[in-house]
């Protein structure tokens, strides 16, 4: 039973990294729990889509029925705006006696009675109708308003003026930046996708990352691992595997959305997004990608460090919660970030490491993050991310052996220098 390993290879580090990534990835996606959690979201989405689909079908059918239904109503017109012909065409009969008209509604002889005041702009239009249920009763108000609108349009007598008065016009806006046409919202959207990716990856993967490093400690496997491979390889391998797991999850989430959008867009009443209006500017896209990568590195490193310090997942949650909350903080100031990006608060959010990724990605999307600021924030995230990752590896190496108690970070850092180990 002797098997001598292949020891001479110069790519042992990469070999081990690949082994760790493969093991961690496969054992995660092999778990039934993973698929239950992952599939739960698209299943819920599918249920919602089905409900929306059914609801829209029902609404459409009801709407068609209401459109075709004839409403028998009486009306009085103190304003003198309503032309008799228009009212008659809509099923109305002019009344001169409000009391009789109301009595007919109460007695069920008439569906509704509309009382138009002398000045509809300042006085209320009174609508009385036979009760047909909460939703069907809305028909009365809709018909009363429609009658008034058609009457007003008839008075104006010009389709152009009617559209202008109703604000029913199309506006094409073109703005310029540095003498070039700016893309507007179409420019903002692509870089903001990195913000969405950042959120999705942190929300989906952070808990797994925290538990992943705690697992070695809770399973008492740390000593076996530390004497078999470099802890940096283990940590980086875990990060890569979780990133791959995240891609699988995103794929699973997006599949029903893509199918729904491609085949059932009309029935689901999804917005018809014109993708041709999107402008893909290389600069903001590159900055967005680097901010995503830097932010992901920083947060991941922090989670690994927490996992190395805390003895159990339960205790790690005490720190984990506030850390996650800090990511959301910039959204409470989103209007300020968009309207006054140079205010002290926004500047603080831009450079404070935990809020920097979200704030900078928002500003990058909306074009208020200049090149200098972008370089500083990206450098800050990568440098801090690398430092925290190194700290995390150090804490894991010298702290994860502390199985049952919380690690003292200062004590670990105060450990003797390498020369004492003979290095």
């Amino acid at each position: 039973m002797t098997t001598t390993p292949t020891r001479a290879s110069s790519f042992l580090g990469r070999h081990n990294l690949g082994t760790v990534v493969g093991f961690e990835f496969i054992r995660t996606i092999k778990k039934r729990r993973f698929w239950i959690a992952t599939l739960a979201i698209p299943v819920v989405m599918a249920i919602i889509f089905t409900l929306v689909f059914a609801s829209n079908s029902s609404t459409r059918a009801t709407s068609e029925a209401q459109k075709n239904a004839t409403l028998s109503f009486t009306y009085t017109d103190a304003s003198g705006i309503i032309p008799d012909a228009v009212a008659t065409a809509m099923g109305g009969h002019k009344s001169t006696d409000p009391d009789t008209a109301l009595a007919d509604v109460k007695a069920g002889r008439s569906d509704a009675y509309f009382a138009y005041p002398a000045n509809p702009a300042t006085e209320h239009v009174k609508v009385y109708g036979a009760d047909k249920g909460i939703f069907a009763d809305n028909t009365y108000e809709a018909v009363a308003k429609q009658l008034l609108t058609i009457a007003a349009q008839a008075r104006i007598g010009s389709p152009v003026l009617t559209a202008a008065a109703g604000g029913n016009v199309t506006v094409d806006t073109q703005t310029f930046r540095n003498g070039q046409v700016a893309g507007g919202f179409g420019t903002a959207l692509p870089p903001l996708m990195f913000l969405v990716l950042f959120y999705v990856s942190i929300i989906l993967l952070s808990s797994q990352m925290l538990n992943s490093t705690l697992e070695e400690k809770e399973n008492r496997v740390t000593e076996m691992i530390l004497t078999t491979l470099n802890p940096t390889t283990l940590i980086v391998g875990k990060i890569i595997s979780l990133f791959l797991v995240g891609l699988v999850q995103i794929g699973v989430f997006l599949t029903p959305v893509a199918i729904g959008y491609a085949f059932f867009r009309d029935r689901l009443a999804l917005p018809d997004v014109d993708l041709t209006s999107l402008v893909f500017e290389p600069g903001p896209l590159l900055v967005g990608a680097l901010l995503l990568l830097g932010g992901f590195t920083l947060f991941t490193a922090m989670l690994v460090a927490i996992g190395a310090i805390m003895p159990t997942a339960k205790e790690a949650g005490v720190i984990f919660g506030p850390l996650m909350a800090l990511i959301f903080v910039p959204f409470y100031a989103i209007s300020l970030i968009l309207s006054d990006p140079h205010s002290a608060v926004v500047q603080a959010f831009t450079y404070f490491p935990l809020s920097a990724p979200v704030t900078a990605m928002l500003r990058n999307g909306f074009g208020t993050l200049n090149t200098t600021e972008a370089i500083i924030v990206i450098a800050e995230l990568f440098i801090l991310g690398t430092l925290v990752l190194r700290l995390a590896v150090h804490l894991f190496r010298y702290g994860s052996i502390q199985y049952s108690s919380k690690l003292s970070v200062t004590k670990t850092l105060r450990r003797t220098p390498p020369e004492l180990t003979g290095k």
Partner: protein
Amino acid sequence: MTAGGAAIEPLVRIENFRMDFGETRVIRDLSFDVRAGETFGFLGSNGSGKTTTLRALLGIYQPTAGVLHIGGKVFEPRDGVRLGYLPEERGLYKKEAVLDVMVYFGRLKGLSKAQARSWSLEYLDRVELADKASTRLDKLSGGEQQKIQLGVTIMNDPELLILDEPTKGFDPVNRRLLMDIIEEQKLAGSTVIMVTHQMEEVERLCDRVILLKDGTSRAYGTVAEVQEQFGGTLYRITYTGPLPGSDLYEVTAADVGSADLAPRNGADETAVLRELVTSGVAVRSFTTERVSLEEIFIRVYGKETADLT
């Protein structure tokens, strides 16, 4: 203290090792070496510093001071000597299948996937766990998990095998199996460092030993040298009549009509026997025996500690 035998380049060298945890000094100026190919017994009661020394040797702890080398340098995983380490705190990925975990560690130790799988299946068959290859580790009994852990430890054909209380948790049958495997490794040329409280195992397997107490070496050398250091021989007698004290021997154990005598002041068996006879003791039998390591352990730690271990 120096070990006996010819000068051979040590595989493990520890010099002036000191380890502090906060204000507590756990290891005090410890020096010893382990030669290539030998089986080395690392003895001492709980808390004497054995596991701490091993962890520092393997880079899990950073030593406060001293040199701890394996193969002439500080240990780094997968760099230099092939290591098999069975830690005192045992554990593997409990939620994973036995074979998956074994193949994973085999891959990390440099085996190809096919080699790791083939070795694992062969090993599982040998330890009568072939039918558990697809079973999750946490569904196995404690003893079965120990067998898997041992397999993971030796699957890379280690040049240096470090076993921290290897028999802990094993029943007598599995302990026999474990000892057979250790002997095989020894015969295959592995250097073995073994932490254990089982003195009969040490006497049977170990070439040299070190005995730690409170982080310092209390005995070090070949088993025979250590026995010699603690009196080497003792005389077991049966007798009638009173047993008086003497400068030539010390009574280390006594029962009705029998006693163990440790010689003192360079007395040999003839001198002790003459002393007994001239003192009026009716000696019915007189045998010469070596001091057992267990007896030495008891002398160093006291009877209470020995009972506990």
